[in-house]
């Protein structure tokens, strides 16, 4: 099924952008997730390394043959990255993301991209 909306949200670029702009932070400092992923990744923090690996794999899916598999792998790493962050975060940090309309909107956008990637991959797998 060729749904332009699903194609748009399932695009690896959309996936990386929606992941990068998720708003996270602490009561004194916050912003797009990409800033923290890069900072944490270069300092050996797990969620940062997972995030960077997820972004690299997702972008790699643009160039390799097994696009779907690589993109889903990247997506899973991204999801793990966010899960690790929110699981380890102090509750007041989680409130920053889940208590702010703009931040929730960025999370929803990423969830939308995840759903689109899964739908598209499932369709491809079924048609193959």
């Amino acid at each position, binding site marked *: *099924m060729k*749904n332009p909306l*699903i194609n748009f949200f399932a695009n690896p670029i959309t996936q990386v952008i929606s992941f990068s702009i998720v*708003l*996270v*932070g*602490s*009561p*004194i*400092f*916050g*912003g*797009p997730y990409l*800033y*923290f992923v890069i*900072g*944490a990744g270069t*300092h050996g*923090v797990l969620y*940062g390394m997972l995030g960077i690996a997820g972004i690299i794999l997702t972008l790699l899916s643009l160039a390799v043959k097994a696009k779907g598999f690589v993109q889903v792998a990247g997506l899973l790493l991204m999801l793990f990255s966010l899960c690790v962050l929110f699981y*380890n*975060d*102090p509750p*007041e*940090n989680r*409130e*920053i993301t889940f*208590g*702010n*309309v*703009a*931040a929730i909107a960025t999370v929803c956008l990423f969830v939308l991209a995840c759903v689109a990637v899964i*739908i598209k991959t499932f*369709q491809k797998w*079924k048609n193959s």
Partner: protein
Amino acid sequence: MKQTILILFVVCSFMACRKTNIVEQNTTSLSAQKIIKDSLSPALFNSIDFSKTSSHVLQNGKSLYRFPLTDANNHYVIVITDQNGKYVNAKIIAVSGSFDLTSKNKTYNGTITTSFLNGAVSKEISIVNGLITSLHQVSNVQSNGLKQHPLFECADCTLPEVIVSSSYNSGGGIDWASWMSLLDLLGYDDDYGYYYSFDYFGGGGGSSGGGSGDVTTIDREYPENKTAIDPKKFMDCFGTIPDAGATCSITIATDLPVDGHPETFFNWNEQSPGHSFIELNKSTPYGGVSQDIGFYPNTSLKSLTGDYIAAKVVDNGGHEYQAKYTITVTPAQFQAAIDKVNSSSYKQYNLEFYNCTDFALDIFNAAGGNLDIPRHKIPNYEIDGGSNTPQGLYEKIAQLKSNGVAGTTTTQNKEYAGSSKGPCN
């Protein structure tokens, strides 16, 4: 598969829809008309221009109706009904005022008279700079060194009840319009930020008409999980302790991003750069007052923009720290610190130029602290000379301690500040 997705789409669309019962709306509109017909004098009722009636369904399900009266400009009958069209509130509102376009922030000054439907005046409300004065207790005027600011009862309720908007008209001039928070005027807490259009005039270049719609929603920013305090009320507590015989001290404290690791600039696990705060203490043998306060961005998610953003002062009683430096000061120096708290709390937060450490240093140095700390460059926000950070403050206190300066404390683990007394009236 096509069917599955189609079904999912239809179900999602259906769930996203909000039920709107047009018949019910018409019924409630009629009941609003009935309410005013029963209560208004016949002369006033006959002067209503029903063709210009506007209605607005609020998020809580209530409806607000505006029935314009033809006898004067900005003269309305306002009726609020519940979901079933039953009476909730009704008032006659007459607005008279003018735009102040000479000020930097264009404002509105005037009066609003609210009357009961029988014509008896309920309230005369004066609007100064867009603020309903009765809702804001102007307690004092403080100088922040740049300009005078009125001190309002709460630090975050600074969005005026009447705001002025401008737009370019087709002739190239500017149209001005005022928008009023009617729910605030009627004594309700307007959690949704509804503003209704009122006065309008077209500027030079020709006018293009009445401007945009009848009601607009303005997002109100609420402070995040750290509750903002009114620093003046906190500082007022020190006035209850006489200067004679009092011992005054000021402590600057720093909470490192990673406990026991002063070399670490940022805690990537908790997205925290650490925190600096200040403790003011005034005591006598008969008792004393201690207040711990810190400076935060109102919306921390905006801090990475690098812009100046709205800030708040927070009660930091019980906050952890890894280093602190306490100095004993004279009552005059202590008063200088209090004045600095009152003026600096109006400043905006900026990650590079005015963060929590700058605020704490401002107050500490106003009392003669003479503390100059090593500056660090914040990754991606590297300014010449660097920024003041909690890490830099720790390094300075550790250096003072190693030089044998009295009043300095550092710890590898963490200690906690005492509790604040809180606000005093």
